[in-house]
């Protein structure tokens, strides 16, 4: 636990010292909000503010994974520190868990940035749900994205083109999350893939919480997220074992 906290604390410092990351959590939400606002400005339905907020936020959350956790891992590999971390007595997933959580906590600030822009710059009213709902959803986002991010980190750990592939995944993920169009309009096989993405359930959940009377405990999205979190949790354990073997037996850690 102490390792996780130290890792988390120092990751805050490292990420914030990187201007690209500051861009991702502050400037990018502003830019995405502006872009989507202009694209959708003819859209004549009442809750356009909420619609913008949900979509921009989820896009940013994904970007934070792409630009932070996974590229951090590639950077660590290049800097050679991955070896020192791996060869320490602490389990690898605790060390990187701390880093991923730190990046996500920072990334969740982009929600606030989007909210402020939509509410005050574009003057589109967003009625926030009650504080308990917000806190519950915040933690749901955090744990589901932490497990997803760690799972992907393992998946791409030994891939020389990790950054390439996660960049390539950006727009497919947006599509499969229901940002541009309803998932029901997608072919059935793509719908199945979208069920495996926390972003799909998060988009659904965020849309629901703006309905003040909605009880999130009855939301299938909450349970979908919890089940996915558990699945990715198991995935992390399995991947951890596979990766350890790959590193130790195939000696691939320092290949980059």
């Amino acid at each position, binding site marked *: 636990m102490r390792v996780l906290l130290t*890792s988390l604390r120092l990751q805050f*410092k490292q990420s914030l010292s990187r201007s690209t990351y500051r861009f991702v959590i502050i400037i990018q939400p502003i830019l995405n909000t502006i872009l989507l606002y202009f694209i959708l400005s003819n859209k004549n339905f009442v809750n356009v503010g909420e619609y913008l907020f949900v979509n921009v936020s989820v896009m940013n959350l994904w970007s934070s994974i792409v630009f932070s956790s996974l590229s951090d891992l590639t950077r660590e590999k290049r*800097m*050679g520190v991955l*070896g*020192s971390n791996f*060869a*320490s007595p*602490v389990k690898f997933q605790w060390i990187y868990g701390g880093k991923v959580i730190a990046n996500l906590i920072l990334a969740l600030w982009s929600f606030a940035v989007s909210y402020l822009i939509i509410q005050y710059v574009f003057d589109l009213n967003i009625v926030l749900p009650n504080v308990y709902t917000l806190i519950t959803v915040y933690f749901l986002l955090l744990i589901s994205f932490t497990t997803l991010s760690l799972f992907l980190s393992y998946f791409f750990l030994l891939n020389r083109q990790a950054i390439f592939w996660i960049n390539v995944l950006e727009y497919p993920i947006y599509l499969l999350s229901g940002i541009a169009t309803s998932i029901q309009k997608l072919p059935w096989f793509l719908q199945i893939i979208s069920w495996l993405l926390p972003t799909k359930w998060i988009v659904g959940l965020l849309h629901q919480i703006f309905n003040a009377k909605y009880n999130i405990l009855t939301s299938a999205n909450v349970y979908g997220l919890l089940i996915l979190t558990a699945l990715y949790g198991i995935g992390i354990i399995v991947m951890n074992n596979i990766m350890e073997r790959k*590193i130790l037996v195939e000696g691939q850690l320092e290949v980059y």
Partner: protein
Amino acid sequence: MNEYMINLDKVSRTYKEKNGTDFVALNQISLNVKKGTIHGLIGPNGAGKSTTMKILSTLLLPSSGTVTMKGIELQSNLNAVRQDINFIYGGERDLYWRLTARENLEYFSALYSLKGVEQKEKIKELLELVQLTDVANKKVETYSKGMKQRLQIARGLLNNPRILLLDEPTIGLDRQSAEEFKNIIRHLAANGTTILFTSHYLEEVEDLSDEITIISRGEIVASGTAQELRSNIGKELYVHAVVENVVNRKQAITLFSRYFGDELSVEKYVERTGNVIEMKVSLSNKKLDDVKLSSFVQNSKIREWKIGSPSLDEIYRYYTTV
């Protein structure tokens, strides 16, 4: 209790090449390092030094054979070994450049369960040891190569390792920093730390090591104290000669054989640089005929020659030249 802190028994390591064939990086090597000693591992690039170091750093498993560290079998007890070992790789990698030196040490000490006062004291002590106290709060990216290397040393000592593995630790260091580094290593060994290190600087290896192992093409070709390595070659005769117009091995052998016939035979051509050839020759009657040798020197085109103990550099080339 086992007197060896590091023990490799018939350790092999193969890598799969892209075309599916196996590349043998280590072939049945056996190596023992005694507690509190400094052991130098030398060999040309691609000889298997780094693979050995990676295995001992717990970053790689051997394909076969047994590795024992501080009496514990490594392969199935990685974590039990990790708390007591550490490694320092030469160069500027292995650090978080965007953190300060102090933050780097805080981070890595947390990985070795250091906390509270103990952690603070250790970091302070190590910063002083590597003379980085004054710049401890500056980001590592602003450091010179030497400073980064010194910080690496501090990082490697955070857990008071009983076994310290150093892979070309003085690469890029100036002479003075390298000297300081060597003093730290001697001090650690005197306090019981077992040290295995690789280096291409043979003078440094001879200066530091209690024992030296030479590795070539994945196999250990010689091992022992510098003196033992010398006498291994010295049992036979080591001739260093400056010979004109000798262009290849065959000519060199012909030249020597013409004079000494059966008494002295050239066993192995070591190296030819310019008009200098260095050769290992052995005496069949174990005694050098001085008259014949003088006659040989006078009549052949040898300008200079010496018979005697080879330097470590010569030993190294003797064992690693094909």
